[in-house]
Protein backbone atom coordinates (compact mmCIF):
# COMPACT_ATOMS: atom_id res chain seq x y z
CA UNK A 1 0.00 0.00 0.00
CA UNK A 2 1.29 3.40 -0.90
CA UNK A 3 2.84 5.36 1.90
CA UNK A 4 3.23 2.34 4.07
CA UNK A 5 6.63 2.35 5.62
CA UNK A 6 8.92 -0.22 4.10
CA UNK A 7 11.09 -0.05 7.22
CA UNK A 8 11.80 -3.13 9.29
CA UNK A 9 10.52 -4.13 12.73
CA UNK A 10 11.65 -1.87 15.60
CA UNK A 11 15.02 -2.96 16.99
CA UNK A 12 15.66 -3.52 20.67
CA UNK A 13 19.41 -4.13 20.95
CA UNK A 14 20.41 -5.51 24.35
CA UNK A 15 18.24 -3.05 26.25
CA UNK A 16 16.11 -4.90 28.80
CA UNK A 17 13.31 -2.34 28.86
CA UNK A 18 13.05 -2.34 25.06
CA UNK A 19 13.02 -6.14 25.00
CA UNK A 20 10.31 -6.28 27.66
CA UNK A 21 8.11 -3.78 25.81
CA UNK A 22 8.69 -5.65 22.54
CA UNK A 23 7.59 -8.90 24.18
CA UNK A 24 4.52 -7.21 25.63
CA UNK A 25 3.58 -5.69 22.27
CA UNK A 26 4.02 -9.04 20.53
CA UNK A 27 1.80 -10.70 23.11
CA UNK A 28 -0.78 -7.97 22.49
CA UNK A 29 -0.51 -8.74 18.76
CA UNK A 30 -1.26 -12.42 19.36
CA UNK A 31 -4.24 -11.53 21.51
CA UNK A 32 -5.49 -9.13 18.87
CA UNK A 33 -5.15 -11.74 16.10
CA UNK A 34 -6.94 -14.28 18.30
CA UNK A 35 -9.79 -11.82 18.89
CA UNK A 36 -10.18 -11.25 15.14
CA UNK A 37 -10.25 -15.01 14.56
CA UNK A 38 -12.80 -15.39 17.36
CA UNK A 39 -14.91 -12.71 15.64
CA UNK A 40 -14.78 -14.68 12.37
CA UNK A 41 -15.78 -17.90 14.15
CA UNK A 42 -18.55 -16.24 16.12
CA UNK A 43 -20.01 -14.58 13.03
CA UNK A 44 -20.06 -17.94 11.27
CA UNK A 45 -21.73 -19.51 14.31
CA UNK A 46 -24.34 -16.74 14.26
CA UNK A 47 -25.11 -17.39 10.60
CA UNK A 48 -25.33 -21.13 11.29
CA UNK A 49 -27.81 -20.59 14.13
CA UNK A 50 -29.94 -18.23 12.07
CA UNK A 51 -30.00 -19.95 8.69
CA UNK A 52 -29.49 -23.61 9.48
CA UNK A 53 -31.09 -23.99 12.91
CA UNK A 54 -33.62 -21.23 12.23
CA UNK A 55 -32.95 -19.90 15.71
CA UNK A 56 -32.51 -16.32 16.82
CA UNK A 57 -29.29 -14.79 17.98
CA UNK A 58 -29.20 -12.49 20.99
CA UNK A 59 -25.67 -11.64 21.96
CA UNK A 60 -23.48 -12.53 19.00
CA UNK A 61 -23.65 -9.32 16.94
CA UNK A 62 -22.72 -7.15 19.88
CA UNK A 63 -20.02 -9.54 21.08
CA UNK A 64 -18.48 -9.64 17.62
CA UNK A 65 -18.38 -5.84 17.44
CA UNK A 66 -16.71 -5.59 20.85
CA UNK A 67 -14.20 -8.25 19.81
CA UNK A 68 -13.30 -6.25 16.71
CA UNK A 69 -12.98 -2.96 18.62
CA UNK A 70 -10.94 -4.75 21.28
CA UNK A 71 -8.71 -6.35 18.65
CA UNK A 72 -8.09 -2.93 17.09
CA UNK A 73 -7.13 -1.24 20.35
CA UNK A 74 -5.09 -4.10 21.76
CA UNK A 75 -3.37 -4.56 18.39
CA UNK A 76 -2.15 -0.94 18.31
CA UNK A 77 1.20 -1.52 20.11
CA UNK A 78 2.04 -4.56 17.97
CA UNK A 79 1.36 -2.72 14.72
CA UNK A 80 3.46 0.18 16.01
CA UNK A 81 6.26 -2.28 16.68
CA UNK A 82 5.97 -3.65 13.15
CA UNK A 83 5.83 -0.03 11.91
CA UNK A 84 2.54 -0.86 10.28
CA UNK A 85 0.81 2.46 11.01
CA UNK A 86 1.10 4.29 7.70
CA UNK A 87 2.84 7.62 7.57
CA UNK A 88 4.14 10.03 4.96
CA UNK A 89 7.89 9.52 5.14
CA UNK A 90 8.73 11.72 2.16
CA UNK A 91 10.21 14.61 4.17
CA UNK A 92 12.05 12.38 6.69
CA UNK A 93 13.61 10.55 3.71
CA UNK A 94 14.91 13.82 2.27
CA UNK A 95 16.37 15.04 5.55
CA UNK A 96 20.06 14.65 6.38
CA UNK A 97 20.58 11.92 8.96
CA UNK A 98 21.21 14.13 11.97
CA UNK A 99 18.14 16.28 11.29
CA UNK A 100 16.13 13.14 10.60
CA UNK A 101 16.98 11.94 14.09
CA UNK A 102 15.63 15.14 15.65
CA UNK A 103 12.53 14.92 13.47
CA UNK A 104 11.93 11.37 14.74
CA UNK A 105 12.34 12.55 18.34
CA UNK A 106 9.84 15.34 17.64
CA UNK A 107 7.18 13.15 16.00
CA UNK A 108 7.53 10.45 18.65
CA UNK A 109 7.18 13.08 21.39
CA UNK A 110 3.98 14.58 19.98
CA UNK A 111 2.65 11.05 19.42
CA UNK A 112 3.37 10.23 23.06
CA UNK A 113 1.60 13.42 24.16
CA UNK A 114 -1.62 12.67 22.27
CA UNK A 115 -1.68 9.00 23.26
CA UNK A 116 -1.25 10.14 26.89
CA UNK A 117 -4.44 12.17 26.44
CA UNK A 118 -6.26 9.20 24.90
CA UNK A 119 -4.97 6.88 27.64
CA UNK A 120 -5.93 9.23 30.48
CA UNK A 121 -9.45 10.02 29.27
CA UNK A 122 -9.88 6.44 28.08
CA UNK A 123 -9.11 5.29 31.59
CA UNK A 124 -11.59 7.81 33.02
CA UNK A 125 -14.30 6.69 30.63
CA UNK A 126 -13.71 3.04 31.52
CA UNK A 127 -13.68 3.92 35.23
CA UNK A 128 -17.03 5.71 34.94
CA UNK A 129 -18.59 2.70 33.28
CA UNK A 130 -17.16 0.41 35.93
CA UNK A 131 -18.10 2.55 38.93
CA UNK A 132 -21.63 3.25 37.75
CA UNK A 133 -22.24 -0.26 36.46
CA UNK A 134 -23.22 0.91 32.94
CA UNK A 135 -24.86 -1.72 30.81
CA UNK A 136 -25.52 -1.74 27.10
CA UNK A 137 -29.21 -1.07 26.32
CA UNK A 138 -29.74 -4.27 24.33
CA UNK A 139 -31.53 -7.50 25.26
CA UNK A 140 -28.21 -9.04 26.17
CA UNK A 141 -27.16 -5.95 28.16
CA UNK A 142 -23.50 -6.72 28.90
CA UNK A 143 -21.56 -4.63 31.42
CA UNK A 144 -19.86 -1.94 29.38
CA UNK A 145 -16.68 -1.74 31.44
CA UNK A 146 -15.55 -4.98 29.84
CA UNK A 147 -15.33 -3.71 26.24
CA UNK A 148 -14.29 -0.23 27.41
CA UNK A 149 -11.32 -1.79 29.19
CA UNK A 150 -9.71 -2.04 25.74
CA UNK A 151 -9.40 1.78 25.67
CA UNK A 152 -6.96 2.25 28.57
CA UNK A 153 -5.33 -1.10 27.84
CA UNK A 154 -4.73 -0.49 24.14
CA UNK A 155 -3.68 3.14 24.43
CA UNK A 156 -1.57 2.32 27.52
CA UNK A 157 0.34 -0.39 25.65
CA UNK A 158 0.71 1.84 22.60
CA UNK A 159 2.09 4.53 24.90
CA UNK A 160 4.69 2.07 26.21
CA UNK A 161 5.71 1.05 22.69
CA UNK A 162 6.02 4.70 21.62
CA UNK A 163 8.17 5.48 24.68
CA UNK A 164 10.32 2.46 23.83
CA UNK A 165 10.65 3.68 20.22
CA UNK A 166 11.69 7.12 21.46
CA UNK A 167 14.30 5.64 23.81
CA UNK A 168 15.63 3.44 20.98
CA UNK A 169 16.11 6.50 18.76
CA UNK A 170 17.70 8.58 21.53
CA UNK A 171 20.10 5.76 22.48
CA UNK A 172 20.80 5.21 18.77
CA UNK A 173 19.70 1.58 19.04
CA UNK A 174 17.17 2.02 16.23
CA UNK A 175 17.27 4.17 13.10
CA UNK A 176 14.95 7.21 13.13
CA UNK A 177 11.64 6.33 11.36
CA UNK A 178 13.25 2.91 10.88
CA UNK A 179 14.89 4.32 7.76
CA UNK A 180 18.34 2.84 7.37
CA UNK A 181 19.08 4.03 3.90
CA UNK A 182 18.90 7.24 1.92
CA UNK A 183 19.16 10.83 2.96
CA UNK A 184 22.10 13.08 2.30
CA UNK A 185 24.45 12.57 5.25
Amino acid at each position, binding site marked *: *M*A*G*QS*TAAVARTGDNLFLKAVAALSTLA*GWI*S*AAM*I*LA*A*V*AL*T*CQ*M*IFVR*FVLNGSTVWQ*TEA*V*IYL*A*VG*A*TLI*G*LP*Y*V*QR*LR*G*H*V*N*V*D*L*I*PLMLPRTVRRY*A*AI*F*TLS*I*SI*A*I*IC*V*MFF*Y*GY*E*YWHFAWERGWRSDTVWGPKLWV*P*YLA*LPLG*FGLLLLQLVADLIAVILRIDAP*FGLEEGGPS
Partner: protein
Amino acid sequence: MDPLTLGGLVALGTILILFSGVSVAIGLLIVSALFLMIFDGMRSLELMPEIFFGKLDNFALLSIPMFIIMGASIASTRAGADLYEALERWLTRVPGGLVISNLGACALFSAMSGSSPATCAAIGKMGIPEMRKRGYSDEVAAGSIAAGGTLGILIPPSVTMIVYGIATETSIGRLFLAGVFPGLLLVGLFMAWSLYSTWRSGNTEVLTKTVYTWKQKLEILPRVLPFIAIIIGVLYAMYGGIATPSETAAVGALLCLLIAIVIYKLWSPVKLWEVLRDSTKESVMILFIIGAAGVFSYMLSSLFITQAIAEWIGTLDVNRWVLMFAVNVFLLVAGFFLPPVAVILMAAPILLPIITTAGFDPIWFAVVLTINMEIGLISPPVGLNLYVINGIAPDIKLKTILAGSLPFVACMVIAIVLLCFFPGIATWLPNAVMGV
Protein backbone atom coordinates in the same frame (compact mmCIF):
# COMPACT_ATOMS: atom_id res chain seq x y z
CA MET B 1 -13.17 32.90 14.22
CA ASP B 2 -15.08 32.39 11.02
CA PRO B 3 -15.52 28.62 10.44
CA LEU B 4 -14.20 28.84 6.89
CA THR B 5 -10.91 30.44 7.99
CA LEU B 6 -10.78 27.84 10.72
CA GLY B 7 -11.24 25.17 8.06
CA GLY B 8 -8.25 26.59 6.18
CA LEU B 9 -6.20 26.47 9.36
CA VAL B 10 -7.20 22.86 9.99
CA ALA B 11 -6.17 21.92 6.44
CA LEU B 12 -2.81 23.63 6.84
CA GLY B 13 -2.26 22.10 10.30
CA THR B 14 -3.13 18.62 9.02
CA ILE B 15 -0.71 18.89 6.10
CA LEU B 16 2.11 20.12 8.36
CA ILE B 17 1.55 17.43 10.98
CA LEU B 18 1.24 14.60 8.46
CA PHE B 19 4.34 15.62 6.52
CA SER B 20 6.37 15.59 9.74
CA GLY B 21 6.29 11.81 9.37
CA VAL B 22 3.93 11.05 12.26
CA SER B 23 1.56 8.15 11.53
CA VAL B 24 -1.70 9.17 9.84
CA ALA B 25 -4.06 8.08 12.62
CA ILE B 26 -2.02 9.71 15.38
CA GLY B 27 -1.66 12.84 13.22
CA LEU B 28 -5.43 13.12 12.88
CA LEU B 29 -5.84 12.75 16.65
CA ILE B 30 -3.22 15.46 17.25
CA VAL B 31 -4.87 17.96 14.89
CA SER B 32 -8.31 17.20 16.33
CA ALA B 33 -7.08 17.60 19.91
CA LEU B 34 -5.29 20.88 19.17
CA PHE B 35 -8.26 22.54 17.49
CA LEU B 36 -10.79 21.19 19.99
CA MET B 37 -8.63 22.42 22.87
CA ILE B 38 -8.12 25.92 21.45
CA PHE B 39 -11.59 26.59 20.05
CA ASP B 40 -13.84 24.43 22.18
CA GLY B 41 -12.06 24.24 25.54
CA MET B 42 -10.15 21.55 27.38
CA ARG B 43 -13.29 19.68 28.34
CA SER B 44 -13.92 18.49 24.80
CA LEU B 45 -10.73 16.39 25.00
CA GLU B 46 -12.57 14.16 27.46
CA LEU B 47 -14.87 13.06 24.68
CA MET B 48 -12.14 11.84 22.33
CA PRO B 49 -11.83 8.21 23.52
CA GLU B 50 -15.61 7.93 23.68
CA ILE B 51 -15.99 9.18 20.09
CA PHE B 52 -13.14 6.92 18.97
CA PHE B 53 -14.84 3.89 20.51
CA GLY B 54 -18.25 4.93 19.19
CA LYS B 55 -16.92 5.21 15.63
CA LEU B 56 -15.60 1.65 15.76
CA ASP B 57 -18.75 0.33 17.45
CA ASN B 58 -20.32 -0.64 14.12
CA PHE B 59 -21.08 -4.08 12.71
CA ALA B 60 -20.38 -2.98 9.13
CA LEU B 61 -16.73 -2.33 10.02
CA LEU B 62 -16.29 -6.01 10.69
CA SER B 63 -16.23 -6.66 6.96
CA ILE B 64 -12.81 -4.98 6.83
CA PRO B 65 -10.80 -7.55 8.85
CA MET B 66 -12.90 -10.32 7.27
CA PHE B 67 -12.17 -9.35 3.67
CA ILE B 68 -8.54 -8.78 4.60
CA ILE B 69 -8.22 -12.31 6.04
CA MET B 70 -9.92 -13.65 2.93
CA GLY B 71 -7.44 -11.83 0.69
CA ALA B 72 -4.41 -12.63 2.82
CA SER B 73 -5.14 -16.35 2.83
CA ILE B 74 -5.52 -16.34 -0.96
CA ALA B 75 -2.34 -14.28 -1.33
CA SER B 76 -0.42 -16.73 0.87
CA THR B 77 -0.99 -19.58 -1.57
CA ARG B 78 0.16 -20.46 -5.06
CA ALA B 79 -3.23 -19.30 -6.30
CA GLY B 80 -1.67 -16.34 -8.11
CA ALA B 81 0.67 -18.62 -10.06
CA ASP B 82 -2.13 -21.05 -10.87
CA LEU B 83 -4.42 -18.28 -12.03
CA TYR B 84 -1.71 -16.89 -14.24
CA GLU B 85 -1.01 -20.29 -15.77
CA ALA B 86 -4.67 -21.02 -16.33
CA LEU B 87 -5.29 -17.75 -18.16
CA GLU B 88 -2.13 -18.13 -20.18
CA ARG B 89 -3.17 -21.64 -21.29
CA TRP B 90 -6.71 -20.59 -22.14
CA LEU B 91 -5.99 -17.27 -23.81
CA THR B 92 -3.06 -18.46 -25.85
CA ARG B 93 -4.92 -18.17 -29.16
CA VAL B 94 -5.90 -14.56 -28.62
CA PRO B 95 -3.45 -12.16 -30.32
CA GLY B 96 -1.15 -10.82 -27.64
CA GLY B 97 -2.47 -13.56 -25.39
CA LEU B 98 0.39 -13.27 -22.94
CA VAL B 99 -0.08 -9.64 -21.98
CA ILE B 100 -3.86 -10.12 -22.05
CA SER B 101 -3.64 -13.08 -19.70
CA ASN B 102 -1.29 -11.15 -17.44
CA LEU B 103 -3.74 -8.28 -17.16
CA GLY B 104 -6.64 -10.68 -16.70
CA ALA B 105 -4.75 -12.52 -13.95
CA CYS B 106 -3.95 -9.19 -12.29
CA ALA B 107 -7.60 -8.11 -12.37
CA LEU B 108 -8.86 -11.41 -10.95
CA PHE B 109 -6.12 -11.86 -8.40
CA SER B 110 -6.19 -8.28 -7.16
CA ALA B 111 -9.95 -8.49 -6.74
CA MET B 112 -9.57 -11.74 -4.81
CA SER B 113 -6.62 -10.75 -2.65
CA GLY B 114 -7.63 -7.10 -2.29
CA SER B 115 -3.96 -6.22 -2.20
CA SER B 116 -2.24 -4.26 -4.89
CA PRO B 117 1.38 -5.03 -3.91
CA ALA B 118 0.57 -8.73 -3.36
CA THR B 119 -0.87 -8.89 -6.89
CA CYS B 120 2.16 -7.22 -8.45
CA ALA B 121 4.41 -9.64 -6.63
CA ALA B 122 2.36 -12.80 -7.31
CA ILE B 123 1.59 -12.22 -11.00
CA GLY B 124 4.68 -10.16 -11.78
CA LYS B 125 7.13 -12.80 -10.55
CA MET B 126 6.10 -15.07 -13.40
CA GLY B 127 4.52 -12.64 -15.80
CA ILE B 128 7.33 -10.13 -16.18
CA PRO B 129 10.16 -12.61 -16.96
CA GLU B 130 7.86 -14.52 -19.32
CA MET B 131 6.80 -11.38 -21.21
CA ARG B 132 10.38 -10.19 -21.53
CA LYS B 133 11.52 -13.63 -22.69
CA ARG B 134 8.94 -13.55 -25.45
CA GLY B 135 10.06 -10.13 -26.62
CA TYR B 136 7.64 -7.69 -25.01
CA SER B 137 9.33 -4.41 -24.11
CA ASP B 138 10.35 -3.82 -20.49
CA GLU B 139 7.96 -0.86 -20.37
CA VAL B 140 4.92 -2.93 -21.30
CA ALA B 141 5.96 -5.87 -19.12
CA ALA B 142 6.48 -3.77 -15.98
CA GLY B 143 3.78 -1.16 -16.62
CA SER B 144 0.99 -3.65 -17.31
CA ILE B 145 1.63 -5.51 -14.06
CA ALA B 146 1.97 -2.31 -11.99
CA ALA B 147 -1.29 -0.97 -13.41
CA GLY B 148 -3.06 -4.33 -13.33
CA GLY B 149 -2.33 -4.62 -9.62
CA THR B 150 -4.26 -1.45 -8.86
CA LEU B 151 -7.53 -2.89 -10.18
CA GLY B 152 -8.29 -4.66 -6.91
CA ILE B 153 -9.38 -1.51 -5.13
CA LEU B 154 -12.08 -0.99 -7.79
CA ILE B 155 -13.27 -4.51 -8.64
CA PRO B 156 -15.35 -6.08 -5.84
CA PRO B 157 -14.91 -7.14 -3.15
CA SER B 158 -12.84 -4.06 -2.35
CA VAL B 159 -11.78 -2.90 1.10
CA THR B 160 -11.34 0.62 -0.27
CA MET B 161 -15.00 0.67 -1.32
CA ILE B 162 -16.06 -0.64 2.11
CA VAL B 163 -14.11 2.16 3.77
CA TYR B 164 -15.77 4.71 1.47
CA GLY B 165 -19.17 3.20 2.24
CA ILE B 166 -18.57 3.47 5.96
CA ALA B 167 -17.11 6.98 5.81
CA THR B 168 -19.98 8.33 3.72
CA GLU B 169 -22.78 6.04 4.91
CA THR B 170 -23.51 4.76 1.42
CA SER B 171 -24.53 1.18 0.64
CA ILE B 172 -21.53 -1.14 0.36
CA GLY B 173 -23.56 -3.45 -1.89
CA ARG B 174 -24.19 -0.63 -4.37
CA LEU B 175 -20.58 0.49 -4.24
CA PHE B 176 -19.33 -3.01 -5.07
CA LEU B 177 -21.64 -3.22 -8.09
CA ALA B 178 -20.69 0.27 -9.22
CA GLY B 179 -17.06 -0.85 -9.49
CA VAL B 180 -17.73 -3.76 -11.87
CA PHE B 181 -18.11 -2.09 -15.29
CA PRO B 182 -15.56 0.68 -14.68
CA GLY B 183 -13.17 -2.10 -13.60
CA LEU B 184 -13.80 -3.97 -16.84
CA LEU B 185 -13.46 -0.71 -18.77
CA LEU B 186 -10.03 -0.18 -17.23
CA VAL B 187 -8.96 -3.75 -17.97
CA GLY B 188 -10.06 -3.18 -21.58
CA LEU B 189 -8.17 0.09 -21.87
CA PHE B 190 -5.04 -1.46 -20.34
CA MET B 191 -5.21 -4.38 -22.78
CA ALA B 192 -5.79 -2.07 -25.72
CA TRP B 193 -2.78 0.04 -24.87
CA SER B 194 -0.50 -2.99 -24.30
CA LEU B 195 -1.45 -4.48 -27.65
CA TYR B 196 -1.22 -1.18 -29.51
CA SER B 197 2.17 -0.32 -28.10
CA THR B 198 3.55 -3.78 -28.86
CA TRP B 199 2.14 -3.64 -32.39
CA ARG B 200 3.50 -0.11 -32.93
CA SER B 201 6.99 -1.18 -31.89
CA GLY B 202 6.91 -3.47 -34.93
CA ASN B 203 7.46 -6.42 -32.65
CA THR B 204 4.39 -8.21 -33.93
CA GLU B 205 5.76 -11.74 -33.86
CA VAL B 206 5.67 -11.68 -30.03
CA LEU B 207 1.91 -11.40 -30.28
CA THR B 208 1.71 -14.97 -31.58
CA LYS B 209 1.19 -17.95 -29.41
CA THR B 210 2.42 -21.17 -27.96
CA VAL B 211 0.06 -24.13 -28.21
CA TYR B 212 -1.42 -26.00 -25.27
CA THR B 213 -3.34 -29.26 -25.40
CA TRP B 214 -6.84 -29.58 -23.98
CA LYS B 215 -5.45 -31.76 -21.24
CA GLN B 216 -3.12 -28.97 -20.15
CA LYS B 217 -5.98 -26.51 -20.31
CA LEU B 218 -8.32 -28.61 -18.20
CA GLU B 219 -5.96 -29.92 -15.56
CA ILE B 220 -5.26 -26.43 -14.22
CA LEU B 221 -8.90 -25.54 -13.57
CA PRO B 222 -9.50 -27.38 -10.29
CA ARG B 223 -6.71 -25.38 -8.73
CA VAL B 224 -8.18 -21.96 -9.53
CA LEU B 225 -11.89 -22.54 -9.33
CA PRO B 226 -12.37 -22.88 -5.53
CA PHE B 227 -11.33 -19.33 -4.68
CA ILE B 228 -13.27 -17.85 -7.59
CA ALA B 229 -16.30 -19.88 -6.49
CA ILE B 230 -16.03 -18.49 -2.95
CA ILE B 231 -15.81 -14.90 -4.16
CA ILE B 232 -18.84 -15.39 -6.40
CA GLY B 233 -20.64 -17.15 -3.53
CA VAL B 234 -19.90 -14.28 -1.15
CA LEU B 235 -21.18 -11.71 -3.64
CA TYR B 236 -24.24 -13.84 -4.43
CA ALA B 237 -25.12 -14.19 -0.73
CA MET B 238 -24.79 -10.42 -0.34
CA TYR B 239 -26.99 -9.49 -3.27
CA GLY B 240 -29.43 -12.29 -2.70
CA GLY B 241 -30.21 -10.53 0.57
CA ILE B 242 -29.18 -13.68 2.42
CA ALA B 243 -26.66 -11.95 4.67
CA THR B 244 -24.93 -8.60 5.27
CA PRO B 245 -21.46 -7.85 3.85
CA SER B 246 -19.84 -8.51 7.24
CA GLU B 247 -21.54 -11.88 7.62
CA THR B 248 -20.77 -13.11 4.13
CA ALA B 249 -17.20 -11.86 4.47
CA ALA B 250 -16.80 -13.87 7.68
CA VAL B 251 -17.92 -17.06 5.95
CA GLY B 252 -15.69 -16.21 2.98
CA ALA B 253 -12.73 -15.64 5.30
CA LEU B 254 -13.26 -18.99 7.02
CA LEU B 255 -13.63 -20.85 3.71
CA CYS B 256 -10.58 -19.21 2.11
CA LEU B 257 -8.53 -19.98 5.19
CA LEU B 258 -9.71 -23.60 5.08
CA ILE B 259 -8.96 -23.93 1.36
CA ALA B 260 -5.51 -22.45 1.91
CA ILE B 261 -4.94 -25.06 4.63
CA VAL B 262 -6.46 -28.06 2.84
CA ILE B 263 -5.78 -27.55 -0.88
CA TYR B 264 -2.64 -25.45 -0.67
CA LYS B 265 -1.35 -27.31 2.40
CA LEU B 266 -0.79 -24.27 4.56
CA TRP B 267 -0.26 -26.54 7.56
CA SER B 268 2.67 -25.02 9.29
CA PRO B 269 1.79 -22.80 12.26
CA VAL B 270 4.49 -20.34 11.16
CA LYS B 271 2.86 -19.87 7.74
CA LEU B 272 -0.60 -19.59 9.30
CA TRP B 273 0.66 -17.04 11.77
CA GLU B 274 2.13 -15.04 8.88
CA VAL B 275 -1.32 -14.85 7.28
CA LEU B 276 -2.92 -13.85 10.57
CA ARG B 277 -0.16 -11.40 11.42
CA ASP B 278 -0.41 -9.64 8.06
CA SER B 279 -4.21 -9.48 8.29
CA THR B 280 -4.09 -8.17 11.84
CA LYS B 281 -1.51 -5.56 10.91
CA GLU B 282 -3.51 -4.30 7.96
CA SER B 283 -6.87 -4.38 9.75
CA VAL B 284 -5.63 -2.64 12.89
CA MET B 285 -3.91 0.00 10.77
CA ILE B 286 -7.12 0.76 8.84
CA LEU B 287 -9.43 0.59 11.86
CA PHE B 288 -7.13 2.91 13.84
CA ILE B 289 -7.39 5.47 11.04
CA ILE B 290 -11.18 5.00 10.96
CA GLY B 291 -11.46 5.69 14.70
CA ALA B 292 -9.12 8.68 14.48
CA ALA B 293 -10.94 10.01 11.40
CA GLY B 294 -14.15 9.75 13.43
CA VAL B 295 -12.64 12.07 16.03
CA PHE B 296 -11.37 14.34 13.22
CA SER B 297 -14.79 14.61 11.62
CA TYR B 298 -16.38 15.25 15.04
CA MET B 299 -13.95 18.15 15.47
CA LEU B 300 -14.80 19.50 12.01
CA SER B 301 -18.52 19.46 12.63
CA SER B 302 -18.44 20.68 16.22
CA LEU B 303 -16.45 23.72 15.06
CA PHE B 304 -19.03 24.12 12.21
CA ILE B 305 -16.35 23.71 9.57
CA THR B 306 -18.11 20.97 7.59
CA GLN B 307 -21.34 22.96 7.49
CA ALA B 308 -19.54 26.20 6.55
CA ILE B 309 -17.75 24.52 3.64
CA ALA B 310 -20.97 23.04 2.30
CA GLU B 311 -22.69 26.43 2.55
CA TRP B 312 -19.78 28.19 0.93
CA ILE B 313 -19.77 25.77 -1.99
CA GLY B 314 -23.51 26.32 -2.35
CA THR B 315 -23.01 30.08 -2.79
CA LEU B 316 -20.04 29.68 -5.14
CA ASP B 317 -20.92 30.56 -8.66
CA VAL B 318 -18.76 27.98 -10.42
CA ASN B 319 -19.67 25.29 -12.86
CA ARG B 320 -20.06 22.00 -10.99
CA TRP B 321 -17.65 20.29 -13.37
CA VAL B 322 -15.00 22.85 -12.52
CA LEU B 323 -15.63 21.91 -8.92
CA MET B 324 -15.35 18.21 -9.73
CA PHE B 325 -12.08 18.91 -11.54
CA ALA B 326 -10.72 20.76 -8.48
CA VAL B 327 -11.80 17.93 -6.17
CA ASN B 328 -10.05 15.41 -8.42
CA VAL B 329 -6.83 17.38 -8.51
CA PHE B 330 -6.93 17.58 -4.71
CA LEU B 331 -7.49 13.82 -4.46
CA LEU B 332 -4.78 13.09 -6.99
CA VAL B 333 -2.24 15.10 -5.01
CA ALA B 334 -3.32 13.47 -1.74
CA GLY B 335 -3.10 10.06 -3.42
CA PHE B 336 0.52 10.71 -4.39
CA PHE B 337 1.45 10.72 -0.70
CA LEU B 338 -1.12 8.61 1.12
CA PRO B 339 -2.73 5.19 0.77
CA PRO B 340 -6.32 5.20 -0.59
CA VAL B 341 -8.04 4.36 2.69
CA ALA B 342 -6.31 7.23 4.50
CA VAL B 343 -7.25 9.72 1.77
CA ILE B 344 -10.87 8.57 1.77
CA LEU B 345 -11.25 8.70 5.54
CA MET B 346 -9.71 12.14 5.84
CA ALA B 347 -11.38 13.70 2.84
CA ALA B 348 -14.86 12.14 3.07
CA PRO B 349 -16.28 14.38 5.82
CA ILE B 350 -15.15 17.47 3.88
CA LEU B 351 -15.78 16.32 0.33
CA LEU B 352 -19.12 14.57 0.72
CA PRO B 353 -21.13 17.74 1.48
CA ILE B 354 -19.42 19.43 -1.47
CA ILE B 355 -20.25 16.56 -3.81
CA THR B 356 -23.87 16.23 -2.77
CA THR B 357 -24.47 20.00 -2.70
CA ALA B 358 -23.20 20.17 -6.28
CA GLY B 359 -25.63 17.43 -7.24
CA PHE B 360 -23.24 14.53 -7.87
CA ASP B 361 -24.15 10.94 -7.06
CA PRO B 362 -21.98 9.69 -4.14
CA ILE B 363 -21.91 6.17 -5.65
CA TRP B 364 -20.61 7.49 -8.97
CA PHE B 365 -18.13 9.68 -7.11
CA ALA B 366 -16.81 6.63 -5.24
CA VAL B 367 -15.77 5.10 -8.56
CA VAL B 368 -14.12 8.29 -9.81
CA LEU B 369 -12.32 8.68 -6.50
CA THR B 370 -11.14 5.06 -6.51
CA ILE B 371 -9.70 5.29 -10.04
CA ASN B 372 -8.03 8.48 -8.92
CA MET B 373 -6.50 6.59 -5.98
CA GLU B 374 -5.28 3.88 -8.37
CA ILE B 375 -3.20 6.53 -10.11
CA GLY B 376 -1.48 7.28 -6.80
CA LEU B 377 -0.50 3.63 -6.48
CA ILE B 378 1.64 3.79 -9.63
CA SER B 379 2.93 7.36 -9.37
CA PRO B 380 5.95 8.68 -7.51
CA PRO B 381 6.94 9.46 -4.81
CA VAL B 382 5.32 6.60 -2.92
CA GLY B 383 3.56 4.54 -5.63
CA LEU B 384 4.22 1.26 -3.91
CA ASN B 385 3.54 -0.88 -6.98
CA LEU B 386 6.53 0.68 -8.74
CA TYR B 387 8.81 -0.39 -5.93
CA VAL B 388 7.31 -3.87 -5.73
CA ILE B 389 8.02 -4.34 -9.46
CA ASN B 390 11.49 -2.94 -8.91
CA GLY B 391 11.96 -5.53 -6.17
CA ILE B 392 10.92 -8.54 -8.27
CA ALA B 393 12.62 -7.39 -11.51
CA PRO B 394 15.68 -5.52 -10.22
CA ASP B 395 17.30 -5.30 -13.64
CA ILE B 396 14.49 -3.10 -14.99
CA LYS B 397 15.32 0.48 -14.01
CA LEU B 398 12.82 2.35 -11.86
CA LYS B 399 12.78 4.98 -14.61
CA THR B 400 11.69 2.38 -17.16
CA ILE B 401 8.98 1.05 -14.84
CA LEU B 402 7.73 4.59 -14.35
CA ALA B 403 7.81 5.30 -18.09
CA GLY B 404 5.94 2.05 -18.66
CA SER B 405 3.29 3.00 -16.09
CA LEU B 406 2.57 6.46 -17.49
CA PRO B 407 0.43 5.32 -20.45
CA PHE B 408 -1.62 3.29 -17.97
CA VAL B 409 -2.09 6.43 -15.87
CA ALA B 410 -3.39 8.02 -19.07
CA CYS B 411 -5.83 5.09 -19.45
CA MET B 412 -7.11 5.80 -15.93
CA VAL B 413 -7.58 9.47 -16.75
CA ILE B 414 -9.48 8.49 -19.91
CA ALA B 415 -11.67 6.21 -17.76
CA ILE B 416 -12.44 9.12 -15.42
CA VAL B 417 -13.35 11.36 -18.36
CA LEU B 418 -15.57 8.64 -19.82
CA LEU B 419 -17.27 8.25 -16.45
CA CYS B 420 -17.97 11.99 -16.38
CA PHE B 421 -19.66 11.82 -19.79
CA PHE B 422 -21.35 8.48 -19.22
CA PRO B 423 -22.03 8.14 -15.48
CA GLY B 424 -24.19 5.12 -16.30
CA ILE B 425 -21.02 3.01 -16.63
CA ALA B 426 -20.90 3.11 -12.83
CA THR B 427 -24.51 3.67 -11.82
CA TRP B 428 -26.40 1.40 -14.20
CA LEU B 429 -25.54 -1.94 -12.59
CA PRO B 430 -26.31 -0.99 -8.96
CA ASN B 431 -29.58 0.60 -10.07
CA ALA B 432 -30.53 -2.41 -12.17
CA VAL B 433 -29.77 -4.93 -9.42
CA MET B 434 -30.84 -3.04 -6.31
CA GLY B 435 -33.43 -0.60 -7.68
CA VAL B 436 -33.06 3.15 -8.02
